[in-house]
């Protein structure tokens, strides 16, 4: 039953794409580990880290696309779910530092000692356990999404109003996390991580495993998303996107559909955040900044909204451009981002993935005109 559910959404293209993601996730770490640094096939650790980061962004983009592309909910606050997942991972990593911190306190992280905390705040309990922290990385974003979605979808808040609410949510969280007395590191956030599951976060082998884990999770995310979208639920979901009130008059309780996909998507974004933090080595409140969420939406738009492959490709293209441009011409990046947004909106309504179809349709139209 579960296998049939998981396989129902997989078409040939997607199957190949999932295999490609897995191949990258296996080949790059392997080349890093078995090749000597002098070999031309050697993959340096910084590249693993970069690809791992892109893979976690791709998972976030997939999460955004699931609500936006398939259900028409334009969330401008998915960065918040991503950051919450990241904070859960950050809390775990902080507690792994133990007495190796600057102040050498075996229980309290450095920033707490600095701020004169006498004991560990209650919400830090349990985060020394990896399983618990990962559970929280899924549960905390899910619960927030559930609370927000429950009220918003029942009151039939849709369209731009919902986008504004999600944007306000991530902004409010950013302000809250900037405060030192939140007990979550204030504006400095959390960094100087030492170990994950007993392995050094700096070690090449750890980076290799994290890169593989990101690829594997993305592949899993693609398979599960495909199953959801390909099911009868998925048909109802896109129908809600296209004609919500029609679905109501057919007897569908639309808010249940929206809520499920919104919560699932938030959980996926949380997992993406948890994968991101150990690879970049820091989490701070700027991850909640509204611009981050908007950027994630742009990845989806560039890649192709309403397809599963599109957001992954979009996340890679835009982030590769960002990495390259912020290195080569740092002042230019924001202009490039703005220009990209305009170009995609005007010329590529279906993103890069839709480009192929556009070209094909144009050449067919030309052929149809030619014989006359």
């Amino acid at each position: 039953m579960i296998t049939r559910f998981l396989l129902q959404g997989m078409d040939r293209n997607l199957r190949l794409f999932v295999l490609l993601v897995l191949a990258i996730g296996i080949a790059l770490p392997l080349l890093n580990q078995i090749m000597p640094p002098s070999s031309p096939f050697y993959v340096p650790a910084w590249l693993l880290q970069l690809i791992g980061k892109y893979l976690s962004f791709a998972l976030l983009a997939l999460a955004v696309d699931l609500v936006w592309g398939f259900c028409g909910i334009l969330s401008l606050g998915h960065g918040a779910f991503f950051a919450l997942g990241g904070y859960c991972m950050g809390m775990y990593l902080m507690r792994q530092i133990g007495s190796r911190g600057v102040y050498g306190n075996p229980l309290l992280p450095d920033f707490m000692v600095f701020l004169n905390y006498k004991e560990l705040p209650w919400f830090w309990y349990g985060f020394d356990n990896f399983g618990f922290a990962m559970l929280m990385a899924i549960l905390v974003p899910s619960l927030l999404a559930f609370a927000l979605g429950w009220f918003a979808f029942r009151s039939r808040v849709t369209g731009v109003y919902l986008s504004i609410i999600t944007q306000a949510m991530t902004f409010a969280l950013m302000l809250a996390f900037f405060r030192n007395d939140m007990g979550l590191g204030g504006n400095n956030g959390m960094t100087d991580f030492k170990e994950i599951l007993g392995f050094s976060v700096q070690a090449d082998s750890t980076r290799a495993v994290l890169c593989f884990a990101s690829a594997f999770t993305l592949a899993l995310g693609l398979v599960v998303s495909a199953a959801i979208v390909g099911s009868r639920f998925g048909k109802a979901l896109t129908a809600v996107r296209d004609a919500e009130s029609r679905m109501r008059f057919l007897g569908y309780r639309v808010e249940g559909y929206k809520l499920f996909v919104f919560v699932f998507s938030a959980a996926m974004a949380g997992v993406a955040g948890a994968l991101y933090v150990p690879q970049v080595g820091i989490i701070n409140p700027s991850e909640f900044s509204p611009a981050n969420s908007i950027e994630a939406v742009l990845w989806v738009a560039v890649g192709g909204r309403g397809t599963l492959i599109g957001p992954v490709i979009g996340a890679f293209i835009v982030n590769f451009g960002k990495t390259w441009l912020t290195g080569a011409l740092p002042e230019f990046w924001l202009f490039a981002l703005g220009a990209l947004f305009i170009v995609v909106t005007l010329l590529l309504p279906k993103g890069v993935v839709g480009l192929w179809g556009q070209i094909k349709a144009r050449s067919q139209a030309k052929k149809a005109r030619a014989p006359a």
Partner: protein
Amino acid sequence: MRSTSALLYLSGVTVSFDGFKALNNLSLLIEPGEMRAIIGPNGAGKTTMMDVVTGKTRPDSGEVVFDGRADLTKLDEANIATLGIGRKFQKPTVFENHTVRDNLLLALAGLRKWHRLLLAQPTKDENHRLTEILSVIRMEEQQYMLGARLSHGQKQWLEIGMLLAQDPKLLLVDEPVAGMTDVETETTAQVLREINKTHSVVVVEHDMSFVRALGVKVTVLHEGSMLAEGTLDQVSADQRVVEVYLGR
């Protein structure tokens, strides 16, 4: 709530938007198996009445009872649809990014809960029913075509197919022949009479020749209340109806 043998019972229904009374103390009775035409000039409250019955608009006062037991003023669209009231809109609204077959599948009576749909596979019965409806609306050949690619007429047919799939006790049909040719209008009247053999129908329409072709009891609405009721000939002879339609 009054118990009644009528399929649809409206009594003293008033709806106002910013002081404007879209419905003013409207009462209406539809018997089981009946087909009723509702006519009236623009702004008479025809669409508002449909909105009230389908749960889109809550009345300020009055009773709306379906099937002698369900108080429609307390239920939402999804509940009311599940009870057995189907609605066809003036502008055909089919799901453009779904195939004809998937459109019908979504409309098919039965599964509506999201958690059951995740694992649901179409059953033999459902497939059989879909094939049946496709042949009734003569769209077997287009069954894998996307809704967006259908012509206006095909969309109308598909929507009728979706109503059949939904299998409601009462069908509300809003201006079904708007923008249709005379031949299409005549065909639609036939289809509605066919549907009326097994379902109760309320038709809202402007087109008098269409209403004549239906040959059913007519209710005239004016400024949110009922002005006259009877056969088309009776109401056309009514002096007040003439005044409303021709202006004073």
